[in-house]
């Protein structure tokens, strides 16, 4: 029920803020999506879509954070491992 799918905004039409509509590309399938709740959405951005509405604009900087976090975990553990080995 709370499923939401990421898609890329191809174009935007309409001036009425509550009925502004985007054509959004979901990996090749293009659908018209309401932008009432993402007034900041621009062409080229990725939005998360739920029952025909964009509910957020995906923050691309934050999207990579989990992978940076993973590298951080790996680095810390490598260092801890190295320290353990170096210990007498």
């Amino acid at each position, binding site marked *: 029920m709370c499923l*939401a799918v990421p898609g890329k905004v191809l174009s935007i039409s309409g001036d009425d803020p*509550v009925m502004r509509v985007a054509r959004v590309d979901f990996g090749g399938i293009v659908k018209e999506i309401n932008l009432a709740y993402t007034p900041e959405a621009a062409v080229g951005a990725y939005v998360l879509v*739920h*029952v025909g509405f964009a509910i957020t604009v*995906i923050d691309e900087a934050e*999207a990579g954070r*989990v*992978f940076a976090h993973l590298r951080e975990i790996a680095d810390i553990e490598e260092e801890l491992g190295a320290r353990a080995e170096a210990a007498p």
Partner: protein
Amino acid sequence: MRFRDEYRDPEAARSLSEAIARLTTRPWTLMEVCGGQTHSIVRYGIDELLPGQVTLVHGPGCPVCVTPVDYVDKAIAIAGRPDTILCSFGDMLRVPGSNGDLFAAKARGADIRIVYSPLDALVVARANPGKEIVFYAVGFETTAPANAMAVYQAKREGLANFSMLASHVLVPPAMRAILSLPRNRVQGFLAAGHVCTIMGFDEYVPMAAEYSVPIVVTGFEPIDILEGVYMCVRQLEEGRAEVENQYSRSVRREGNVPAQAIMREVYRVVKRRWRGIGEIAESGLGISPAFRDYDAETRFGAVVPHEEAESECISGLVLCGEKKPTACPAFGTRCTPEHPLGVTMVSSEGACAAYYRYRGAPAAPSNPATGKMDRVPAEQGAV
């Protein structure tokens, strides 16, 4: 697909599961709140990637599953009226009322239409000015703004033949209800990422402090869920109980402000009965007085609450995380998606449906002499 496929990377999943294993020194029980997360967990076998000391229990996060019988009965009664079209999300059609479901009503000739978006119900209303169009709206905070927009726009257009039967539920009151159960064993939450996309996560801060429970706002892909577990276990191991945001590519602290503004206008907070759980104060959204002309209960009479019939179904315990689906004696035998006893088996997001779909029915005893099972579901009898 970008922003999806990379979060299913097996290498990253392995690194995270190893990191969780190194972090864990004691048994911990975490609950993922949303049915979408439950599906990912069962589908990708994420529970099997975790150390034995970390248990995931499944939460109440399936709005279809918790929709009370009386609303289904009301929807069926409305759909049976002459010159009326009932529109709903497809998931709702097989949810049993006290006397059959919407599919059966459709088979008897009622005009019931499945819509993808609430705005599709407005299209039906514009095309059928001589008929009453009723949108049967269910959902958590994720869906409530989309449903609100249908009512908001109907009023703007003066679409007098449109109304909404509103059966929305709110997630935080249900989390509090679970934490308040004397039998509660949940020590940390993976909060529902899309609910928080709309509502933000400030309202969880007092809950985390009051119940000393870490709450990590978590996404839906395998890497999201594993990182959510990592963050939650780290808090538990360090003795912290804070609100953290794993799903930061989607969730901002303040949530979706324009969506909240429309919700405040169209809805009011009401008490709500949850199927299998019971009544929870201030846990639902009904239609506000300003939009009462578009409330199906104003037009066709209020929903009359009544008790649920007795059943061997344990969906109430499954929804509170007290039991796994496989702990139910009827699971996969007397209860299947084709012949469901309860809504957790009906809804595509229900925990029972997820176990049945991805893990199958429990096998029959392979050796009548020993009674040994071919495949004993991992969690059977564990609770």
